[in-house]
């Protein structure tokens, strides 16, 4: 898929929608409306939009505990997502999943996942399904650099390569495994270097640059779709907030975070790229931000006004029940 102004504008818009969604969710936790925890995606938006801009509606995506951005980039509705974070009946998962399990199966977004590295096998499985059925759907798995330490990473990628499955493994390496810098617990710096063990291409990209992500993923998706097998892409990125709510972040300095926000904000990087090409005027930019802001305000209002789940919901969806569906 070639890069067009339209595509760039879509990525730019989605980055703002993600950024504002996360900031609103954070605000709602302070109001006591969003409970549990929140793993904010701010700073990493270029990865989700750069990947999903290459995907069709019927392509499969599985995510992580930090997946609000993946869901929005794949097309999920922000109002239903916010309602899910509130635990309301109108949420994407009817209030049964919460932040770590947001999913929209109508978009083949098969869910965030609360267990690190747990989506890699299932994404390889959706790719296996496509291969058996003979469709040209591509599966994309997002996971963090911490997941590369898990056995599921090795077991699943080994099978993805063995059977040449149409899957793209996207590692979001934000440098921290919860509270621990990657370098303290991993000898291999770049997760992309691990691709050689499975005889698949491994590429490391600047995950703050949506264009760079888009172009590398375009090649990996084209390879997967045409039967060329899997790829492992490492997007080197940075999270602007802590691991989750209440993270004191003693493992990094405020200066480091401020420097990254100044020099590596993915929104600024894409804005500069588009401005240079006269693809985005300042009026366009204002409009994008205004619209995204309005959407997220509406989402919060929708969530707030939505009803709580009925008590009977506790016992439904444990197993399939023909009566429930009928």
């Amino acid at each position: 898929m070639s890069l067009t102004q339209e595509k760039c504008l879509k990525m730019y818009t989605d980055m703002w929608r993600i950024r504002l969604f996360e900031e609103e969710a954070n605000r709602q936790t302070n109001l006591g409306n969003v409970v549990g925890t929140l793993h904010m995606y701010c700073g990493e938006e270029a990865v989700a939009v750069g990947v999903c801009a290459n995907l069709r509606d019927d392509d499969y995506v599985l995510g992580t505990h930090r997946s609000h951005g993946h869901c929005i980039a794949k097309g999920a509705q922000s109002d239903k997502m916010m309602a899910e974070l509130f635990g309301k009946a109108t949420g994407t998962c009817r209030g049964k999943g919460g932040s770590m399990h947001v999913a929209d199966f109508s978009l083949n977004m098969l869910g965030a996942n609360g267990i690190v590295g747990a989506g890699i096998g299932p994404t390889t499985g959706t790719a296996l399904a496509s291969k058996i059925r003979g469709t040209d759907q591509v599966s994309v798995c997002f996971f963090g650099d911490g997941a590369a330490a898990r056995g599921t990473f090795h077991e699943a990628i080994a099978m993805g390569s063995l059977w040449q499955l149409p899957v793209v493994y996207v590692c979001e390496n934000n440098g921290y495994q919860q509270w621990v810098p990657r370098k303290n617990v991993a000898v291999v710096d770049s997760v992309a270097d691990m691709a050689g063990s499975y005889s698949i291409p491994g590429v490391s990209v600047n995950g703050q640059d949506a264009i760079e992500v888009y172009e590398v993923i375009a090649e990996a998706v084209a390879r997967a779709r045409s039967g060329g097998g899997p790829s492992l892409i490492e997007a080197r990125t940075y999270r602007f907030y802590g691991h989750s709510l209440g993270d004191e972040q003693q493992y990094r300095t405020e200066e480091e975070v401020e420097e990254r926000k100044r020099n590596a904000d993915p929104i600024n990087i894409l804005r500069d790229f588009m401005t240079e090409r006269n693809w985005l005027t300042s009026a366009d930019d204002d409009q994008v931000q205004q619209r995204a802001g309005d959407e997220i305000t509406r989402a919060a209002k929708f969530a707030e006004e939505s009803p709580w789940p009925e008590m009977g919901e506790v016992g439904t969806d444990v197993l399939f029940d023909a009566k429930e569906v009928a």
Partner: protein
Amino acid sequence: MTVMAFNEALREALHEEMARDESVFVMGEDVITHGGPYKVTDGVAEKFPGRIFETPIAEAGIVGLGVGAAMAGMNPVIEIMYLDFITCAMDEVVNQAAKMRYMTGGQASVPMVVRLPCGVGRLLAAQHSQIMESWFMHVPGLQVVVPSTPADGKGLLKTAIRSPDPVMFFEYKRTYTHKGEVPEGEYLIPFGKADVKREGEDVTVIAIGPMVQKSLEAAVLLEDEGYDIEIVDPRTLSPLDTETICESVRKTGRVVVCGEDSSFAGSVSEIAAMIAESCFSDLKAPIVRVGSPHVPMPFSAELVKHVVPEAANVVSAVNRVMS
């Protein structure tokens, strides 16, 4: 009706379901070479090319792929060579397969069958002989199925493959060669429907898996003592057919619950507790459990004799509830 061995009945069910539905496929270690470790997957590669995958030794990967393929609308039938190895894939079973439908508010369906050859077989000691039914009974979202005869094996496996939710399918290794009459063609046994394997008046013996056959042997011996025992085979431990079990208990008032697994926090214990709760006033004697002691499976044949319950254990348990 055709007489066949338990593993042949399972194979027939698998072949029939694969012919019926193109979304059914097989995955597991060594499932093609030599027709699989237990010959259950024999012939699948020839008859259904492209629908059987011989995997690396990677249980978490295998079950993880199964979860994804199932969510994408396929029906994976996974073989875990020895049940003991499922511990390497507990996240995939417990946190993924079992929870997906609930966590997604009903969007996900994981129609996956995990076949679990279990129990003592050849003498392979503590890491190749476990049963662990109750581990999975404890997890909402999983169905736990334990066939005891070739016919039940066929009927329950066909239902398992058609189920929209994950099934943990227990196959006791020592029963693979047991023979019995099996209905031809379409034969489905619903989950949550216990089977009264022998009718009797004096004692209800609830028997799981191979304990059904051992209880039938015990019943013959007990006849000589003048005791007429009823044998109820739950067939599925989750869902559990409490109605059929309680009906029998109300009739006899005396209960023995038998399984090969350790009875401590085991499948028999849940059944015993359920009966105590639901039928206390019908009981004429305390419930007795028959199971293995709470020890790992030893290697030596002499020691194994003291672990795996046999017909004699059922006989003495019946004598206890009758005394």
